[in-house]
C-alpha cells in the first residue's frame, strides 16, 4: 500500500498538501459541500427511483411515497433539500474561486468545467421540479417550452427536452431521462474531471 503516489487515489489525495490550504478561508469547504450534496442526491435519488413513476402517475406516486411508504417522506425531503443546498453551495464556491482568483492559467480549464457544472446544477434543480408532476410543474414546463419555441426548429427542440407535458403536469419520460441519466450522469463525470484537474493545477493555493 505504501507507494500510492502513482495511483489514481494517490494523485487525487496526495500524502502531503500545502499548509495554507488548510485555512478555512482557502476554500470555506464549499467545493466539498457541493460534492457531499451530490453524493446525498445520488443515494436518495436512486432510492426514489424504486417508487417514482414519471408521466401521468408522477404526482400520485410521490404522494404515496410521501405518506404511505416507510421513510419515503424522509428520502424525498433529503433529496429536495440537498438539491437546494447544492445550488447555493456551488454558487458560493464560484464566488470563492473568483475572490481567490483561482481561475488563472493552469486552472482555466477547471473554471470552464466549473461553469458547466453550475449550469448543470441549475438544470438538475429545474428538471427535478418538473418531475414533481403537480400543476406548478406543468406551468414551469409550459414556460420552458415557450422559450424553446422562439428558436428556429424550436418545436423539435422543445419535444427533445420536455417530451409532451400537459399544462397540468410537467413530468414526462423525456424529462425523467434528462434528470436521472443525462444531466446527473454528465455532472458526475465532470465532477471527477474537476477533481482530477485540481490536482493537475497542484491543488488549492491559498491567496
Amino acid at each position, binding site marked *: *500500500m505504501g507507494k*500510492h503516489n502513482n495511483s489514481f*487515489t*494517490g494523485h487525487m*489525495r*496526495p*500524502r*502531503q*498538501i*500545502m*499548509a*495554507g*490550504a*488548510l485555512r*478555512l478561508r482557502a476554500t470555506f*469547504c464549499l467545493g*466539498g*459541500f457541493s460534492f*457531499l*450534496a451530490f453524493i*446525498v442526491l445520488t443515494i436518495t435519488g436512486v432510492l426514489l427511483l424504486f417508487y417514482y413513476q414519471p408521466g401521468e402517475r408522477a*404526482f400520485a406516486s*410521490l404522494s404515496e411515497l*410521501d405518506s404511505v411508504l416507510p421513510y419515503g*417522506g424522509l428520502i424525498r*425531503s*433529503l433529496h429536495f*433539500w440537498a438539491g*437546494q*443546498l447544492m*445550488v447555493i453551495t456551488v*454558487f458560493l464556491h464560484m*464566488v470563492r474561486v*473568483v*475572490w481567490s*482568483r483561482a*481561475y*488563472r492559467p493552469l486552472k*482555466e480549464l477547471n473554471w*470552464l468545467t466549473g*461553469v458547466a457544472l453550475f*449550469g448543470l446544477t*441549475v438544470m438538475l*434543480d*429545474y428538471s427535478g*421540479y418538473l418531475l*414533481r*408532476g*403537480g*400543476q*406548478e*410543474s406543468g*406551468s*414551469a414546463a409550459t*414556460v420552458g417550452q*415557450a*422559450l424553446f419555441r*422562439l428558436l428556429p426548429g424550436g418545436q423539435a427542440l422543445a419535444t427533445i427536452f420536455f417530451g409532451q407535458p400537459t399544462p*397540468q403536469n410537467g413530468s414526462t419520460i423525456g424529462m425523467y431521462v434528462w434528470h436521472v441519466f443525462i444531466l446527473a450522469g454528465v455532472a458526475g463525470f465532470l465532477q471527477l474531471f474537476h477533481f482530477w484537474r485540481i490536482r493537475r493545477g497542484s491543488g488549492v*493555493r491559498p491567496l
Partner: protein
Amino acid sequence: MDPVETDRPQGSEKVESSGHQEKVLLIELQVREYISGFLWLGLLFALTAGLKVSLDSSPEATAVSVSKAPWVFGAIQWMLQRWPAWLSGWVIPLLSTAVLVTLPWWARKVGKRWAWIIFLILSLIWVGLTLLYMFTG
C-alpha cells in the same frame, strides 16, 4: 479512511518544507473535512426535519391559476413578466453566461480587480432578482 494514509509515519506532523510553501500531512485536511462534513449533514437533516416539503397541486384538482417558477429560475421569471421573452429568456441569460465563461480572459484584459467587480455586479443582479421574485412574487 483513505487507504493511502494507513502507513503514514507516526508523530512527524510537519513533513517537509518545499520551496516557499510549507507542507503538512493530508490527515490534517481530512480531519477538517470530516468535521465540516458532519456539520453540513447536520444542517441538511435539520432542514429535512424542520421544513416539510409540500406536494404541489394535484393535476387532477380543479386548475389553480399557477404561474410559479422554481426559485432557481426566479430571476428569469421576474424578467419574463416584464420584458419580451427572447430578451429575458435567452439574450440576458446567454450574455451573462458568456461573461462567466470568459472571466479569466477579462481578468487578463482589464485586471483582476475589475474581473471581481464585473463578477460581483453580475451575481448581485441575479441574486437580487431571484430574491425579489421569491419574496414579492
